[in-house]
Structures are given as structure tokens and as C-alpha cells.
């Protein structure tokens, strides 16, 4: 069920990207889309009552595998977050430059290209 919430979040983000007119709001919607995917990935590895995926001598190997959360999605999410941070920084830089050129954040007034 909780996975469906991620999908809902994803769709909300897409809706925002498609309908918003303000550049900053579009960028925020983009961040929502990216966060929803990160959330989904991290939930995949989650286990209720799980322990950190660090193996110690105190715990036998079999029970460790049964209890720890999956570390792979955590590694992937870290990478995905860094990438989305890069995209976010670049998009904000472009939005600032656009504001300098046009004096507005409204996409309906930034319309030189025909698409």
C-alpha cells in the first residue's frame, strides 16, 4: 500500500511539472518527482523492526540476514540524491539566468520558441 503512495507522489509531481506556470514551482515539482522515486527505492529495502546492515561478530550470520535492512537501495538512493541535487542546482541557475533576461518567472511570457 505504501508503495502506492509513492506512485501518487510521483504523479502529483508530474502534474505540477505539466500545469504550473512559475519556473520555481516547476522546479519544485521536479524535486517532488525525484524525491518520490528516492522514497520508493528506500522503502524497497526497508523492513519493519530491521537492524542496520552492519555485520558484527556478536550476531550469527543467518539471523543477521533475516533481520537487517537491504543496504543496496540505500547506496543507490545516495547516488540518486546526489544526481537530483546536481539537476536541481543547474535548473535553479538556468531559472536565475532566465529571470535576468526576461524579468519574469512566468513561462507563458517566456515564449520565443515554437516547440
Amino acid at each position: 500500500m505504501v508503495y502506492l503512495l509513492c506512485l501518487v507522489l510521483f504523479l502529483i509531481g508530474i502534474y505540477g511539472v505539466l500545469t504550473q506556470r512559475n519556473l520555481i514551482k516547476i522546479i519544485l515539482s521536479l524535486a517532488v518527482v525525484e524525491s518520490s522515486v528516492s522514497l520508493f527505492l528506500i522503502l524497497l529495502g526497508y523492513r519493519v523492526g530491521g537492524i542496520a546492515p552492519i555485520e558484527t561478530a556478536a550476531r550469527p550470520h543467518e539471523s543477521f540476514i533475516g533481520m537487517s535492512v537491504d543496504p543496496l537501495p540505500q547506496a543507490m538512493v545516495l547516488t540518486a540524491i546526489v544526481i537530483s541535487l546536481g539537476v536541481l542546482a543547474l535548473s535553479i541557475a538556468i531559472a536565475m539566468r532566465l529571470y535576468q533576461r526576461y524579468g519574469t518567472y512566468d513561462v507563458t511570457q517566456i515564449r520565443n520558441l515554437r516547440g
Partner: protein
Amino acid sequence: MDLLPLIVAVPLLAGFVLPLVPKRAERLADGLALLTAAVLAALSIVALRMPDCIYAIGGWNPPIGINFVLDGASKLMLLVVCVITFVITLYSPAYMVRFTGKRKFYALFFLMVAGMNGVVLTGDMFNLFVFIEIASIASYALVGFGCQKEELEASFRYLVLGSVASSMILLGIALLYAKMGTVNMAHLSDKIAAAGGLGGAGPTTPEGKASALLIFATVLFICGLGLKAALVPFHAWLPDAHPSAPTPISAMLSGLLIKTVGVYALARVLFSVIGITPVVSNVLMILGALSMVVGVFVAIGQWDFKRLLAYHSISQMGYIVLAIGLATPLGVVAGLFHLVNHAIFKPLLFLTAGSVEYRTGTRQLDQMGGLNKKMPVTGTTSFIASMSIAGVPPFNGFFSKLLIIIACFQAGRYGFAIAAVVVSILTLASFTKVQKYAFFGPLKQKWGRITEVPATMAAAMALLAVLCLASSALMLKGPREFLLGNAQRSLTERQEYVERVLGNKHAGGDESLKSF
């Protein structure tokens, strides 16, 4: 074998070293960039002669660690990417003098090349995503490199659509991981095949059929990678982004980027990992045919030289996807052949358009006229490229289009074959217009003083024009089998791919996982 990481590491290193060159020594930066590109081209040719192999990064063997895979398809793509990159690097120094920050340009340029080479080599789904993002982020920045109004706008639109596409790809990968518990391509392929693939013929698990999530993931991959490849319902960003970039980047984007992060990645995921089914094949063919037809119809009405070329990119990508979507051996060979040819003639067309803009300062076709008299090299190479893209016999475009049409007939898809012929004729019409308005006819008064472009730019264009003719040789049996046949087999034979990566007793992959 130890050569594989170098193919990604060399451009990555160059990307970070070149901005450190002091501004006074921009000549040195030019030289280093050219040297890097030459080394890359040499590496790709050496890789061509190596046997198929894999490289496990950090010594972690395939099902666990990330690995690079060198097989027929990646050899072909590496050769195309590295050689074309070399030619475009040759063109760049003289062209880029009108922009400030040439060294930053090189940094982004080589970052993009590193990303593309990584996409081609990687054998890991998540790593594929990371390399797609490296190449894409560099390209977003490069589209807006001039910081003019239109360029920023195109860059922003490209960034928004590209990021949504990337999120879809990542979601698809997450779904595959959720279902199959691995992100290694070969391991995934093996497990998906065991689960019955997309068709859902496999055993029904307690959580329902494995195929439902797989279908969702496939749709996400087709949308996400289709957006990166600018197939027709997802093409809106391309006609803005490609012409707005500086010319060498337009050539890189149209010639290489949409192919590696778009078509190649799509083919790799659909053929090698998920496994193609008739439904997916039909979807690809319809997307391809739509792109082909819509692209060329919009292109005919364009008067902006680079914009016209960008629409033709959509149309030609349609040919490639249509042919690969046929999923017959001949179809895939024809698609890859056209991919190689398009990677040669489209950069050449963009470079000639850039040369005209370099001397005249305009991209409007009706402002030009008679430029052949003043710019013979640009005029001749542009003519060769136009004839190639339009599919006129001695040039490469004719042979690949012929193969595509034959493949369509062979598969019994007569409608698509006829569409391909009609689009080819319309392409010829469109490029007749380009040649007539830009290069033939009387010379306009105001262009009396222009001269040919600098020697390095002319040399780059001449080199590509020679390649336009030379790549026709891929039609001969020997070279075709060696380059295209191997590439086709490595894409379509899933079992071979799995065995190449995981070894013959690939069930052992699970054993080694258990010991963890």
C-alpha cells in the same frame, strides 16, 4: 580487458583537467582536447580488435559488483562515438572562439563523452542510469551555453523533460529490483527469462504474476528512454534544444547523444534484459513510423537551417527505431547500419550549417544563396551529406534505407516499408530546398566578401564527407558481418549475453550471493 575503464576514465579526467589550464594558454587546452579525443578514437579501434570480455570494477564479480561489458554492440557504438567525437573536437577550437569560456566548454563536452561511453559499456542497470544522467546533465548545460534568451529557454525545457524521463527510468529500475532482487543486467535477464518474461508464461507467484510489474517497468523504460531518444510523442524538446546549442554540440547531440542514451540504451534494456515480445516490437515500430513521418513533414516547412536539421533528426531516428523494432536479424542489422550512417551525416550537416553561420551570421535559408562560389568545401561536403541523408545511391544513406525497406518487406510489414519510401522522397525534397537556397543559385550582393572557413573546420567536414562514402562499404559482406552482424547478435541473443557475463554455469551466481 584492463582497457575498458580507460575508455570512461580518459574523458572524465580530461573534463576535470582542461578547466585548470590557465586562460592565457587556451591553445594548450585546444591541443589537450584534441589529444584526448585522438586517444579515445585509438582506444575504440583497439577495443574493436579485442575479444568480447567483461571488466569487474573493483574486483567484485558480476552478480554483485558493477561490470563493464564489451561485446559486438558496444564495440560498434564505441567506435562511432569516439571517432565522431574526434572529428567534432577537430572542428571545435576555431568555431568556439566567439564564445567565452572555451575551457568550460571542453569540461562539459568531455563529461558528456564520458557519460556516453559509460552508457555503452556498462552492464548494470543502476550504473546505466548514472551514466545517462552524467551525459544528460552535461548536455543540459551545453544547450544553454550561450546564455542567450532562446538558448536558456530551450535548455530549461530540455532539463525539465529530461529529468522527468530520468525519474521514469529510475522508477523502472527500482521496480525491476523490487521484483527480481538484482540490478545486474545479465543476472536480471536470466531471472526475467526464468520468470517467463513479459509474456507472463511463468509460474504464478503468491503476489500475483511477475509480468504485471514487468509490463509497468517496460512502459516506463519506453517512455523514459523514448523521451531521451526524442521519439514522436516525446519529441517536443529536441527542435528547440539541438539548434540552440553551439554547433559542435548540436552535432554531438543529434549525432551521438540521442542514439547512445536513447536508442542504444532502449535496445539494450528491451532486447538483452527484458526480452522483446511482439507487443513491444509493435509499439517500437509504431513509435518509429510516427517519428519518421511527423518529423519529415514538419521539417519541410522550416527555414531555419539548424532547426530543419533537428526535425530531420527526429525523422531519421524514426527509421532506426522502426528497423530495430522489427526485431528480425536483418531489421536490427539495418537499424544499426542506419544508426552508424546517421551518426556520420547528421553531424556533417550540422557542421556545415555552423560553418555557414560562422561566416554569414545567419541561419535563415532564404538569406543565403550561391554560397558554393565562396565556400567550396562547405558547399561540397554539405551536398554529399544531403545526398546521404536523402538516400541517393553512391552514399551510405541509400544502402541503410534500402536494407530497412527490404527488412520491412521480409517481415511482411508492407505499410511501414511504403512509409519509409515516401519519407525518403520527402527528405530528398527537403534537402533539395536546402541546397537550392543556401548553396546554389546566384550569390547575394552582401555575401561578396565572405571566405571559406578556417582549415581545421574544413578538414573536419572533409573527413566526415569521406566517411559518408567509406561507410557504404558496410554493405559488403565482410565488414557487415564483422561490425553489424556481431552487434546484432550480441543484442538479440539474450542467452549468450548472460553466459558471457555470468559464465557458463551462471546458476553459480546465486551461490556466491548466498555466502554473503
